[in-house]
C-alpha cells in the first residue's frame, strides 16, 4: 500500500524571498501548506537593552537600525516619546519638516515593499522602476542630512539643521512626478491577469483575525478597519493637513496592494500641503541639555509607521539613561499572523504572504 507523509521544508534564514534572515519551518502536503512556523531572532541585537545604557539623545541612531527601511518614523516615535516624557514643546516648523520627512520615508518604504513583493511574485521590472523613485527620495534625504538609509535626521526638541536651499523645490518636483510613476506600476500590475490570480484571495486575514492578532497598518486597513494613528491621535503636523485613510474590504494580498498604493498617493497629498503651509521660525526647542534628565515616570507613545503602529515605551527614574525601554515592532506583531494567512495555500502563496506582510527583520528581531 501507498503511504503519504508530510514534507518538512526549512525556508531560510538564507533564502531569496524571506526579506532578510527570517526562517520558516513549513510543513507541506505536496504543494499545500499545512503549517507554518516563523522562527525569528537571527537579527537580534538587543537594541532595547542597549538603549538602557545610553543617554537619551544617543538612542535615535539605534532606532534607525530597527526598521531600516522606514527609519524616519522610528526616530520620530522615539523622540516624541522622549519629548512627551520631559514636556518639551517642538516648534511648528520642525513639526512640519518632521511630517514631510516621515511621509517621504513612508513612500520610500512602500516602494521597497512594492518592488520586492513584485519581484517575489516574478515581476522583475517593477523592482527597478520602484528603486528609481526610491533613489530620488534617498537623494533628498542625503541633501538634507548627509545620510541615505539610516538617516537620524531628528533631534530631541526639533531637528538639527534647517532644510538646505533648494530642497523644498526638489521635494516639490518629486511629489509632482510620483503620481505618474505610481500609474506606471499600476499599468504593469493592477490589471495584469497573472498578478490578479496570484494576489486575489491569497493570504486572507479577516478584520476579526487581524484585530485579535494585533495586526496594524495597511494590513488592518485592507480588512476594512480604517485605524490610523495619524488620524486618531494626530502627532507632528498631521492635525493640520487633510488626508484620507484608504481602506479596502477584501482583506487579501491584492487589497493590501491597493491600500499601499493609495497610501503613497495620500502621502503625496500630505507632503504637498505641508510644503505649502511650511511656516518659518525656530527648528528646535531652546534650552535643552545634551545630558537631559526627564522627570521620573513612564510614557508610551505610538506613531503610524509604514508597516503599522510603532510603539515606544520609556520608563525614566530621573536619571540620564532610560530605566526601561520597549519598542512595539509592527513587523513582529504582523508576522505572527502568517500562520493564519497562509494555511491551506500553496507553496507559492507563502512568498506572496511574506511580501504582503512587509516585514523588516531588523524591526522584528530588534
Amino acid at each position, binding site marked *: 500500500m501507498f503511504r503519504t507523509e508530510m514534507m518538512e521544508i526549512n525556508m531560510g534564514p538564507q533564502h531569496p524571498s524571506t526579506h532578510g534572515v527570517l526562517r520558516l519551518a513549513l510543513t507541506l502536503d505536496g504543494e499545500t501548506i499545512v503549517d507554518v512556523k516563523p522562527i525569528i531572532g537571527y537579527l537580534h541585537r538587543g537594541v532595547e537593552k542597549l538603549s538602557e545604557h545610553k543617554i537619551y539623545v544617543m538612542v535615535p541612531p539605534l532606532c534607525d537600525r530597527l526598521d531600516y527601511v522606514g527609519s524616519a518614523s522610528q526616530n520620530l516615535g522615539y523622540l516624541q516619546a522622549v519629548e512627551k516624557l520631559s514636556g518639551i514643546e517642538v516648534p511648528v516648523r520642525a513639526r512640519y519638516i518632521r511630517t514631510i520627512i516621515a511621509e517621504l520615508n513612508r513612500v520610500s518604504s512602500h516602494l521597497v515593499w512594492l518592488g520586492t513583493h513584485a519581484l517575489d511574485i516574478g515581476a522583475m521590472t517593477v523592482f527597478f522602476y520602484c528603486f528609481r523613485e526610491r533613489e530620488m527620495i534617498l537623494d533628498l534625504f542625503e541633501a538634507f542630512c548627509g545620510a541615505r538609509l539610516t538617516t537620524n535626521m531628528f533631534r530631541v526638541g526639533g531637528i538639527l539643521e534647517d532644510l538646505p536651499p533648494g530642497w523644498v523645490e526638489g521635494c516639490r518636483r518629486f511629489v509632482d512626478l510620483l503620481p505618474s510613476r505610481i500609474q506606471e506600476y499600476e499599468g504593469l500590475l493592477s490589471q495584469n491577469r497573472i498578478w490578479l490570480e496570484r494576489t486575489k484571495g491569497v493570504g486572507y486575514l479577516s478584520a476579526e483575525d487581524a484585530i485579535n492578532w494585533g495586526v496594524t497598518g495597511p494590513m488592518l486597513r485592507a480588512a476594512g478597519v480604517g485605524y490610523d494613528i495619524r488620524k486618531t491621535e494626530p502627532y507632528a503636523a498631521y492635525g493640520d493637513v487633510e488626508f484620507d485613510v484608504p481602506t479596502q474590504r477584501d482583506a487579501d494580498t491584492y487589497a493590501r496592494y491597493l491600500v499601499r498604493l493609495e497610501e503613497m498617493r495620500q502621502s503625496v497629498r500630505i507632503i504637498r500641503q505641508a510644503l505649502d503651509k511650511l511656516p518659518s521660525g525656530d527648528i528646535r526647542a531652546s534650552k535643552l541639555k545634551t545630558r537631559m534628565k526627564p522627570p521620573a515616570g513612564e510614557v508610551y507613545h505610538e506613531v503610524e509607521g509604514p508597516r503599522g503602529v510603532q510603539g515606544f515605551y520609556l520608563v525614566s527614574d530621573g536619571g540620564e539613561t532610560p530605566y526601561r525601554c520597549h519598542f512595539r515592532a509592527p513587523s513582529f506583531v504582523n508576522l505572527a499572523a502568517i500562520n493564519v494567512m497562509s494555511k491551506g495555500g500553496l*507553496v507559492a502563496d507563502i512568498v506572496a504572504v511574506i511580501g504582503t506582510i512587509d516585514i523588516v527583520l531588523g524591526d522584528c528581531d530588534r
Partner: protein
Amino acid sequence: MSQDDLINYLVIPVVKIAVVLGVVSGLVAYLTLLERKVLGFMQLRLAPRRVGPSGLLQPIADGIKLLIKEDPTPDGADRALFVLAPVMSIIPAFAALAVLPFAATPFEIFGYEFTPFITDVNIGVLYILSITSLGVYGIILGGWASNSKYSLLGSLRSAAQMVSYEVPLGLSIIGVLMLAGTASMVGIVEAQRQAAWWFFVPQVIGLFCYFVSAVAETNRLPFDLPEAEAELVAGYQTEYAGMKFAFYMMAEYVNMIVVASLATTLWLGGWLRPFPNVEALEFLNFLNWAHPALSGIFWFALKVFLILYIYIWLRGTFPRYRYDQLMRLGWKWLLPLSLANILVTGLVLVLWK
C-alpha cells in the same frame, strides 16, 4: 564503398553537424548576453559592459567562470544520476536541431552538395516533439538525485508541467500538419510557399496555443515554476554548480532556440521572405547575389530572433503563475482551444475542398 559515398554519407553530415552545433552553441552564449542586454534596456539599467567592448566578451567570461568553479556533489546524492542528469537534459535539446531547415537551396562546395539543414525526414515534426519531450528526464532525475527537498519539489513541478503542456503543444501543431499535408519540415515550408501565405494567417490560434505551451515547455517566465527562485531557490538546479549547471542552462537556451525555430518553420514560413509569391518583393532576398541560401538563413534567423525577443520581453513583463493556475491554464484553456482549432481547421478543409 566508393569515395563519393564516403563523403556523401559520412564527411558531409559530420561537417554539417559540426557547423550547426558550433553556431548554435555560440548563439546560446550570445543569447544569454542578448537577454541580459534587453532586460537591462527594459529595466533602466546598463547590463554587462565591463568585459570587452560594451560587454561583448561577457559570455566567454561566464563560460570560463563556470568551467573553473568548484563542482561539489551534495551528501547523499546519487552520484551517477547526478552527473548524468544534466547530460540527459542537454542531449535531446541539441538532437532536436537535426531536422531544422535553415534554408532550401544547397551550397555547392568542391562539387559536393551541402544542404543547409542536417537532414530532412518525413516525420520531422514528430521527431522534434518526441526528442524534446525526453528533456524532462534530465530535470526529474536531476531533482531526484540531488537529495534536496527544494530540488525534488522543483523537479516534480517541472515533470507535471512539461508533461501537461506537451499535450496542447502537440495538438496545436496538428492544424498546420493538416494544411501542409506533410510532417517533413522542408515540406511544410514548401507548402507555405505554395499556399502563398504563411500558416500563421489561417492558424493564428494554433500559433497562440503553441507559443504559450512552448514558453511553459522551456520553463521560462511566466511559467518558470520549476526554478521559481523566490520559492524554491533554484528548483531542480539548486544543488548544481559549475559545468553541470551550465549544461542545464545551455539546455534551456537551446530549447528556446528549438521551439522558436519550430514556430518559425511551421507558422512563419521558415526561410521564406514575406509574401513569397509576390515577384515585386524579390529585392527582400537581398543576399541572393552571394547565395540564395544566405537569404533564407537571414529570414529564418530574423524570425527566430523575433520570437526569442518576445520570450525575453515576457520575462521582463509578467509575474509568475502559481502551480495550480498553471495546470488550470494548460488543461482548461489551451487544451480545449487547440482541440477546437483542429476541429475548425478540419471542417474548413473538408468543406472547402
